């Protein structure tokens, strides 16, 4: 069985107070994602641990969509409800057939940095790139 990762899909879910999804958007146009994982910081007594999630960086060409991302950054900057659940799903090719692979769920995430590539009139080759760094509170792997 030949299995290879052919890409990934990013889903941004906005949840209400009851945990129900009120808005969702999927996007498989991102080019790269770096998942920093989680760190565990043990307290001095060694009895309790405090996991800390690292920053996730999504990078790719800008598209004419990504409304959920735009709204998320706008609302976070304005101090409106900032919590989102970010789901990153591996896209696999198993003997030529597409199927989903592992799923990383980033709970209570919020954007901490956004950067768009500089624009210049003389630059006519390539895509306009953008990058967003996201800080989750908790990471879950399924």
């Amino acid at each position, binding site marked *: 069985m030949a299995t290879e990762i052919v890409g990934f899909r990013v889903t941004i879910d906005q949840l209400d107070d009851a945990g129900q999804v009120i808005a969702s958007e999927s996007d498989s*146009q991102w080019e790269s994602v770096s998942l920093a994982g989680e760190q565990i910081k043990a307290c001095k007594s060694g009895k309790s641990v405090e996991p800390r999630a690292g*920053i996730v960086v999504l990078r790719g*060409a*800008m*598209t*004419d*969509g*990504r*409304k959920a*991302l*735009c709204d998320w*950054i*706008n609302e*976070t*900057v*304005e*101090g409106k409800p*900032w919590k989102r659940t970010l789901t990153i799903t591996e896209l696999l090719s198993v003997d030529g057939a597409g199927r989903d692979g592992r799923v990383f769920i980033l709970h*209570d995430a*919020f*954007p*901490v*940095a*956004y*950067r*768009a590539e*500089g*624009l*210049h*009139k*003389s*630059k*006519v*080759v*390539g*895509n*306009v790139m953008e990058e967003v760094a996201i*800080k989750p*509170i908790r990471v879950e792997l399924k």
Partner: protein
Amino acid sequence: MSQDDGGKLDGPARRTVLKLGATALGIGVAARAGLFGDAPPAGAQGVPPGDEILTHAGGFSVEIDGAPAASGRVRSVYGLEVLLDERKPKPNFKKAVLGPLRLAFDTPADEITQWWNDTKSGTCIRKNITINLRRADGTTARQIVCHDSLPTQWSSVNFDTSSTVQTETLTVKIGRIEFKT
């Protein structure tokens, strides 16, 4: 057509192959450039809404409130950045670091000089700057609106003999940023 032992073509045959190759290359370039009328702009056809990749070739435009002529003379835009304090689970507007935005204009950009002079004298300080990113068909795909932008630095004209265009650069502090799609 004859061929020697080294697999090389003789003079006339070589010329024929080169001519055919050049013709094929010309047809390929013409088709890619859309000269035959049936080649759509890259990424414009068959792409569902929201999935079209924005390219530099699609271009951008800038609108500065009260400065329509200078808006059309913007050569480059850098510094579209937002930074939020990651230690705070509830970041708010005051914690956000926006930009600064750096705009380069082809000279003369009299409205920009006027804005700078007005800012120095304390009048007409803040303006909204809208950056439009276009699809391949020329329609606006994304907008980044920098509200209440305040000029903080102006660099005088750069004279460069290697270019026919002279530019001046304005750095602005962004009051509030809004992303639209």
